């Protein structure tokens, strides 16, 4: 054996590199901005008719909620919002959640507000039995993984403040704790960090599981086999944002779109990893979710799914696209 030939990495080294190789936060920062804004938006929408969702006159009142979740078959769902009927507490909770989402988007005290935004949204989501949608779930999923990382290290108020008041950050431990600065020194913020890779991998893996089970679920439906699913999507009155029933004149096109969507969703978990197929899978994701956003009235859900897919775009590429970090490096 040639002594100069490098040894192949062991399984442990591969796993370590996969989950813990330090990376920059540009992709997560982009995801943070959209997710934080979406959390604020979701809570604002809930607040438009808060009395119908929580409190003594909720559509599902506390007694019913407890019977649904803590009956003979408990599902371990818990939220303190199901144990209070005081609207003042509920309003406070919603405003805290909304402001936390905004602070997360702005990257202000990111570590603190990412945890707060996730937790308060989780509490609200648990209380909203029967009134939750994919948007809420995908936003919560991403918000949870952002708590593990340092998405506020770039494109954030934290990073701007750190540049202005480095001495203050060096002196006050609470400032470092609340904003998520672990180390002192120049690279404390913008340096690569293993937690960014870890959180990105968790989002990627979670997305693969979502698509795999979404695809398996579709395989159980007859309309996904006979190619009519696309027609029934555009023929659903509740999801109409644009009249697309003209596609019914082209059943072959509609059938091809059905089968391509099914193949993409089912094979996503495998074909997203090789570099030579990743671009195709991400382009398909943009097409499918963009189509859902534009034609089926689910703009916010479509947007969040596209943003979740951004987890597969490298931080360097995001940095180049956005162009902000590039100038700095030059």
């Amino acid at each position: 054996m040639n002594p100069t030939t490098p040894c192949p990495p062991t399984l442990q080294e591969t796993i370590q590199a996969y989950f813990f190789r330090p990376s920059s936060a540009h992709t997560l920062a982009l995801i943070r901005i959209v997710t934080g804004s979406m959390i604020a938006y979701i809570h604002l929408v809930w607040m438009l008719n808060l009395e119908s969702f929580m409190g003594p006159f909720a559509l599902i009142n506390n007694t019913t909620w407890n019977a649904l979740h803590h009956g003979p078959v408990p599902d371990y769902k818990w939220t303190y919002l199901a144990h209070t009927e005081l609207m003042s507490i509920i309003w406070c909770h919603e405003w805290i959640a909304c402001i936390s989402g905004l602070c997360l988007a702005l990257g202000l005290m990111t570590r603190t507000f990412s945890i707060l935004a996730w937790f308060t949204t989780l509490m609200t989501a648990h209380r909203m039995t029967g009134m939750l949608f994919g948007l809420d779930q995908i936003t919560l999923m991403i918000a949870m993984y952002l708590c593990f990382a340092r998405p506020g290290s770039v494109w954030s108020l934290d990073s701007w403040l750190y540049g202005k008041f480095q001495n203050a950050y060096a002196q006050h431990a609470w400032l470092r704790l609340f904003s998520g600065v672990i180390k002192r020194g120049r690279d404390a913020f913008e340096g690569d960090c293993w937690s960014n890779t870890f959180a990105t991998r968790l989002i990627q893996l979670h997305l693969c599981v979502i698509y795999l089970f979404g695809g398996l679920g579709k395989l159980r439906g007859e309309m996904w086999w006979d190619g009519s699913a696309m027609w029934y999507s555009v023929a659903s009155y509740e999801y109409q944002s644009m009249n697309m029933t003209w596609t019914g004149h082209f059943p072959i096109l509609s059938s091809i779109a059905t089968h391509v969507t099914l193949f993409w969703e089912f094979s996503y978990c495998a074909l997203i990893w090789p570099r030579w197929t990743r671009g195709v899978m991400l382009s398909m994701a943009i097409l499918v979710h963009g189509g859902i956003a534009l034609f089926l009235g689910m703009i916010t859900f479509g947007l969040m799914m596209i943003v979740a897919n951004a987890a597969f775009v490298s931080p360097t590429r995001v940095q180049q696209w956005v162009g902000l970090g590039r100038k700095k490096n030059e």
Partner: protein
Amino acid sequence: MSTWAFDKELYDRIQNSIKASLKHSIGKEIKMLSRIERDLPSSQQVLEEGWALNDPRLTIVLPETMIETTSPLPAEALPSKPTEP
């Protein structure tokens, strides 16, 4: 049967909760809530027969009781007689 009774009790609780909420928000007592489902039209119904996607013919009111099998089942649905050995 016990599962059905349990589910029915939960269902009634949900109905009562919704009725109380609606009474508060619209100020009127709701005596009965109907569950409505919209069926999906075929391309033939929409493109050839001109049905709108919200055509009333597509609206189904879901039953509130257990489906009763008072009408006789078709012969092919009945279990076949055991054959002689």
